[in-house]
């Protein structure tokens, strides 16, 4: 199973459909959209990329997970079982795509699992059916006549960080490299986020908004 994502048609829909389907807590995401801008006025361009787990063929998160809480299903989906997970967080270090987070509610690792609970019932993933511009196509790459196989064969597709050798299964069409590479996981100039439960107190302390004395 794999995804093809049309960069040119993305907007902000995937967030909420995924969160609604899987009750993903605030602060962490299974799939998210990243914007980058390039060029000078009036030739400025903005590119969007939907980021998520790439369900890799040779998934580093599966090799490093001590209790095989992360495992590959025969249909290719990299699924997780949060009852086996001891939350050692080594998978979050192993994933070159920053796709795994620690769920602050269940204190276990979690990530996009291709809505396996929907696929097993015969439904497409939640982010696929919500998108008004059908920017995300899901399907079986091994089936040569499926829409996704034709798309991947017929178009110029790119994947994120192929040099990591994980053989990712999410293909991007008409994408822009600067927006695909998470460029320096370490050097994120993002606002501080929220992950395992221990972060909650820290976040509160750190961002204490200076209470103003009522004048």
């Amino acid at each position, binding site marked *: 199973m794999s995804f093809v994502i049309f960069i040119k048609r993305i907007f902000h829909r995937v967030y909420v459909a995924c969160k609604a389907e899987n009750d993903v807590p*605030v*602060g962490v995401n299974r799939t998210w959209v990243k914007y980058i801008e390039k060029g000078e006025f009036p030739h*400025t361009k903005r590119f969007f990329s939907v980021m998520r787990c790439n369900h890799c063929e040779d998934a580093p998160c599966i090799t490093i997970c001590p209790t095989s809480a992360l495992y590959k299903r025969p249909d290719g989906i990299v699924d997780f079982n949060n009852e086996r997970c001891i939350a050692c967080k080594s998978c979050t270090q192993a994933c070159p795509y920053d796709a795994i987070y620690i769920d602050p509610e269940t204190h276990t690792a979690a990530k996009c699992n291709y809505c396996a609970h929907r696929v097993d019932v015969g439904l497409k993933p939640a982010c696929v059916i919500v998108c008004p511009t059908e920017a995300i196509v899901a399907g079986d790459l091994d089936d040569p006549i499926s829409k996704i196989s034709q798309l991947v064969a017929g178009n110029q597709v790119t994947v994120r960080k192929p040099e990591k050798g994980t053989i990712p299964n999410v293909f991007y069409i008409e994408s822009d490299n600067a927006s695909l590479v998470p460029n320096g996981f370490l050097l994120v100039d993002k606002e501080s986020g929220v992950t395992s439960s221990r972060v909650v107190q820290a*976040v509160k302390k750190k961002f204490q*908004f200076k209470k*103003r004395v009522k004048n």
Partner: protein
Amino acid sequence: MVDWKWPEHRLPGYIKSHIHTDGIESEKGEFPLVPTFRLPTLIHSRSGNAKWLAEISNRNPLWMHTSDADRLGFKNDDLLRVNTEIGYFIVKVWVTESMRPGVVACSHHIGRWRRPQDPVANRWATNSVEILEIESGKWKMNVLDGIQATEGEDSDLSRIFWRDGGVHQNITHAVHPDPISGMHCWHQKVRLEKAHPGDRHGDLFVDTEQSFQVYKDWLANSRPAPGPDGLRRPLWFKRPLKPVMEKFYLK
């Protein structure tokens, strides 16, 4: 249009806007402010209780082109005081190439607030503010607290990672009724300057006497009914809740 005292507009034409460059002195930091662009993920003032929407969009900085920022010496994330006709508001600046030089814009939807005495609600998106009427008609809003991660029935409340409640810009806009279409012409002529000491992001000030004066000035440009044969309004124009025929005529 001829029947309704606007012969000069009988054909499709070009009218110079109230924020045309003729009336803008850019060297004094004056700009046209476009306050109307919307975000795909929010609803005017009803998405304050939708946590997943507030999580995606929780900032409304002032968009400004790099050349304007260099000219006026502003850097990204600086606090600016935006002076409108009837007051001012304090906002952060977002320096970007995706903006037309000579124009600034600030998004709608964000800058919700609640006063300490109001019921606690929309905690995902509201600043807590105090509203003071310094003298009659002179209103000051001070931001006491931004958006805080708090404890609550919904455990997500403790995971709020955004602090910026934004700024309520609409309240500092004077009314601009277009003499023909009756439309409120949203754009404002503003003068930008660095925020004064003690200004906090989201603070604002409005003088309602001044805004009443602006209302009277714009009202003066209108050309009132009656139109042909004493009509208040063209009969073939749409009108919600059409009254009986004779009510269309001014006695």
